[in-house]
């Protein structure tokens, strides 16, 4: 009886399996992270829209900033994202008839996200803007509507 010591039964091309596995791992990471950026952009757009809407629909100017921040936070967390990575900036935020309010939400997307191992790297910053006009004919504000200027 002969011992099986030779390599006559070895299948050539084993390195192709290793190469294929590497392509699979890095390709999956690339596509997953590209999708992560898109998903974060969706969350930022929703947050900006909700923030601007909540601002112009607020009853008073003192409530407007808090309402915008709360709405943006709800939107980000509703997308399963971390509010600590997000930032809300309100521009042109005058609480008066016809005033245009611009809400911009930025979100820091990690460079690599590996299940069970967490998030690594600072990655990219995605941002989205949304603008709304305070309703000229709403109640609760002084003065007349002068949107034509």
């Amino acid at each position, binding site marked *: 009886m002969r011992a099986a010591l030779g390599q006559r039964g070895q299948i050539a*091309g084993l390195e*192709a399996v290793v190469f294929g596995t590497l*392509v699979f791992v890095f390709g999956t990471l690339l*596509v997953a992270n590209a999708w992560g950026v898109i998903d974060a952009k969706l969350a930022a*757009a929703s947050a900006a829209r909700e923030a601007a809407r909540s601002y112009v629909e607020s009853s008073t100017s003192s409530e407007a900033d808090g309402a915008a921040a709360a709405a943006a936070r709800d939107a980000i967390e509703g997308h399963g994202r971390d509010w600590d990575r997000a930032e809300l900036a309100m521009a042109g935020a005058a609480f008066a008839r016809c005033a245009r309010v611009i809400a911009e939400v930025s979100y820091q997307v990690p460079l690599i996200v590996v299940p069970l191992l967490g998030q690594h790297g600072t990655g990219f910053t995605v941002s989205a803007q949304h603008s709304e006009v305070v309703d000229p004919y709403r109640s609760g504000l002084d003065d007349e509507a002068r949107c034509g200027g």
Partner: protein
Amino acid sequence: MLVPAGVLVLVILGAIAVDAAIAFLAQRELAGMAAAAANDAAGAALSGPGFYEAGGRTELTLDAALARRVVDQAVAASPVRGVEDVTVDVRVTASQVCVTVSGHVPYLFARAVPGAATGTTVTGRGVATTVEGPPGAAGASATGVC
């Protein structure tokens, strides 16, 4: 060789999915922009002096030129990143405004493929109607103005 070939096919399909998602995302953003601009115009483009002089008891009509200006301001105030050559069309009837925003979206991965499309054109549309009454009051049908 079947394993790397199959994996490459998988990655390419993933890249196609990402490019399609980018176009879909841009279309959603343009639709949101168009809706916001139409909403702004439906309120801000009302004839103010006429409204107040009639004590709010007149038929609500929109000023087409003012509506166009308000929509342009809305579009300029919140540009959509990643969308090029944005065009805006505004149509106004008595109390309705229809805003259509179009733009070219470059693909992310398909640009690396010789001969493949480098992007696509997406369109978003929003219609708003000016109505008299409390918030939530039913308005006229939004069909037809576009």
